[in-house]
């Protein structure tokens, strides 16, 4: 333990992991919720039903809380590449730095630039302009996901150039952007933010219904969420499978760690799939494991035998294997388990909907279903965090997979500096996390303000032509004559 405290590389890694794990919590919600806000505001403009307007206003309160903290907690992410990973920044700046620049200039600026109008512009701009601002915010947020995932996918499967004298020289930028991991990773993360947000909104809506507050109002949001999640939850399992498949092809060390495979399973033969295990790194084996016979072939390729070998960790020298195999192994199982749970919840909810049991009058009787939704609210976050642990811890010992080792990527800094900043981050981010939960739950307990006046839409004439109600002048006669 004391050794770690004087090891700059380990401390820088811990700092990056800590800031990334905390930071992720906020944009994961805002990115998906932005799409939801586009949907409800669009439905308001279409149907003119004030409920949708009040949904837009209510959920945007949670949106702004999370957005503000997301911005604050995200700043260190960009700067850490320079402060703590200077050799890495210099080696990959040509591509990786450019992509982070695009994220800032194209995506984040778009989101931040229109956010003011989306939040405070209700009375100041035309509803259509306002809607445009909401769309831009959502578009910007998701464009951010795109560029960040382009950058990260490139770290997972570097393409478009080669290392020359310790610097990555890019020969084809578009090939680098379209690196082997890119499309599926972007899709997987896009669905992850959407799914997480849907279940947060759905869970909160279910909580209101269970507590018999604004039942009809929140039955509406629950149904919107359900309609989207019925498609998203199973789709995410499929895209997740595609992501695992690309790991199988491009990152054999990660796949071996995800499955805690120490020995190679040769091609042309069936292989067992381990459901639970206790990986022991020093002994290079699993102390015990629970396996499902012949399942690995079905999981990876939908057939009983493997067409390619699945390499075991022992194929590499200990220094070339990912560490913390147990963490990677269980994170992967937690993520996939949550994915299946959420899809199951959708199946159940979908059935109840078909049976007509989710109508505003009857929905409150579905106590266990609603409790399931409340329970599901935080699961998306856990799955996202677990997934990123698999993705980034599983990439070790490489920062740029197969090209730059993490140990060579770190800035030479006094360990004391990093320890100090790491401690400060741990304290501040914990405060941010607890405060967000506290203030978020305050917003939720307070509930929506259904009294909020709905902005005039243009189907109403600009000048009110309805005859005014006659109010007799009740002032004394003398005062009346003075006024004239």
């Amino acid at each position: 333990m004391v050794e770690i405290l004087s090891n700059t590389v380990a401390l820088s890694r811990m700092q990056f992991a800590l800031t990334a794990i905390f930071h992720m919590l906020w944009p994961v919600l805002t990115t998906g919720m932005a799409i939801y806000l586009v949907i409800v505001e669009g439905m308001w403009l279409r149907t003119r039903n004030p409920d949708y307007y009040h949904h837009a206003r209510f959920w945007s309160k949670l949106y702004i809380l999370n957005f503000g903290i997301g911005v604050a907690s995200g700043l260190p992410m960009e700067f850490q590449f320079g402060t703590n990973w200077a050799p890495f920044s210099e080696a990959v700046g040509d591509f990786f730095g450019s992509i982070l620049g695009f994220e800032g200039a194209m995506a984040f600026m778009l989101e931040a630039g229109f956010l003011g109008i989306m939040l405070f512009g209700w009375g100041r701009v035309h509803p259509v302009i306002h809607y445009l601002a909401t769309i831009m915010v959502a578009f910007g947020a998701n464009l951010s996901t795109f560029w960040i995932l382009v950058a990260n996918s490139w770290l997972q499967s570097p393409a478009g150039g080669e290392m020359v004298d310790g610097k990555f020289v890019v020969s084809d930028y578009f090939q680098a952007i379209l690196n082997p991991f890119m499309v599926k990773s972007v899709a997987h993360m896009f669905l992850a933010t959407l799914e997480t947000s849907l279940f947060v909104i759905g869970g909160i809506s279910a909580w209101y219904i269970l507590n018999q507050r604004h039942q009809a109002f929140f039955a509406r949001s629950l149904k919107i969420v359900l309609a989207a999640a019925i498609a998203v939850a199973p789709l995410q399992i499929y895209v997740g499978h595609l992501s695992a498949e690309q790991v199988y092809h491009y990152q054999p060390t990660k796949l071996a760690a995800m499955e805690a495979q120490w020995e190679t399973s040769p091609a042309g033969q069936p292989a067992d799939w381990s459901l639970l295990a206790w990986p022991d790194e020093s002994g290079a084996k699993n102390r015990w494991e629970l396996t499902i016979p012949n399942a690995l072939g079905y999981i990876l390729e939908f057939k009983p035998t493997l067409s390619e070998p699945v390499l075991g960790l022992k194929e590499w020298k200990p220094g070339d294997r990912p560490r913390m195999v147990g963490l990677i192994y269980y994170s992967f199982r937690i993520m996939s388990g949550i994915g299946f749970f959420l899809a199951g919840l959708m199946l159940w909810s979908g059935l109840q909907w078909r049976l007509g049991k989710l109508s505003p009058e009857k929905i409150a009787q579905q106590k266990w279903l609603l409790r399931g939704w409340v329970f599901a609210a935080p699961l998306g976050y856990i799955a996202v965090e677990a997934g990123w642990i698999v993705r980034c811890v599983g990439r070790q010992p490489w920062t740029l997979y197969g090209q730059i080792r993490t140990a060579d990527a770190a800035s030479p800094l006094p360990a004391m500096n990093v320890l100090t900043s790491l401690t400060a981050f741990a304290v501040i981010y914990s405060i941010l996390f607890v405060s967000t939960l506290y203030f978020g739950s305050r917003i939720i307990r307070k509930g929506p303000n259904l009294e909020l006046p709905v902005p005039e839409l243009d189907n109403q004439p600009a000048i009110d032509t309805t005859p005014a109600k006659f109010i007799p002048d009740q002032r004394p006669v003398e005062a009346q004559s003075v006024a004239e």
Partner: protein
Amino acid sequence: MDALLHFLPQVWFVILGLFLFLYVMLDGFDLGVGILSLTSSDEERRSLLMTSLGNVWDANETWLVVMGGALFGAFPLAYGTILNALYIPIFMMIFGLIFRAVAFEFREHSNRKLFWNFAFGAGSFLAALGQGFALGSVIEGIAVDEAGHFIGSTWDWLDWRSLLVALTLIQGYVLIGSTYLILKTEGELQKTHFRTARLAAITTLIGAILITIATPVFYETARTRLFTPPLFYIFAAIPLLGLLLVWLLLRSLNREEERTPFIWTILIFLLTFIGLGLIVFPYIIPTQITIYQAAAAPSALVFMIIFVGFLIPIMLFYNIYQYVVFRGKVVGSAYGD
């Protein structure tokens, strides 16, 4: 090809300068208002101060993110070396900005506003201080080896000259924050900020004069550059022009004009910025690493211009549009309900 190798880094130097200037100007008044909030006597005033920023602060701060990303992409060597060398001031700034940003959100919902008010003011101060130290030590120069990697020690950034730059920058932020508040407020609050603007104009001026004197006295390289014609005439003209602008600013403050103080302050910032740019150019780590040595490959610079270059006018357009939508005086709470 040779011309291209010179031209592209220069283009990116100008683009970075633009991003940095927009950041310093926009987040400058943001941070200045934050620092001023520490002196506010009551809750209502602090609330108005924060409301005046509610809808713009995160777009303003985004220029820092854009600038950071562009520096990373266009001059990776400088990005790594400068940030590595300035570990402590950079984290000072980041922690300051974090406190400030979360204070906006949490204050709104909190019953104990005093704590978050303090976090807002102190965070703004800390962020400005970190930026000032960073700016001061970049101008002073960073110890690097021949490959351009940082070889100095952790506390290199701290000396009286960088402290002078930091204090002057804070005063400058207070000045632009005050003139912004003159624009956005009325009555007593506005009167207060006519006073703070006058005070800050004078302290900024003193700081600027000291820096102008200290730079050629203590930095030999700067001295040789400064006293060689034709640059000498430009460098002589900048302080004179600066004095003229400060006089115009003080006059507009005495006449209690509402808009012109903000405009004069922006011009003072711009002038200072051009002066700094001329002293630094063609170095990106003065006087060690030039923009040509630190630049990314030409293909990377072209690639970034294609994606970012055409966006600059669009970004400016919607940022200006936002200011147009929210023009006029601040009233009540921006958050409404």
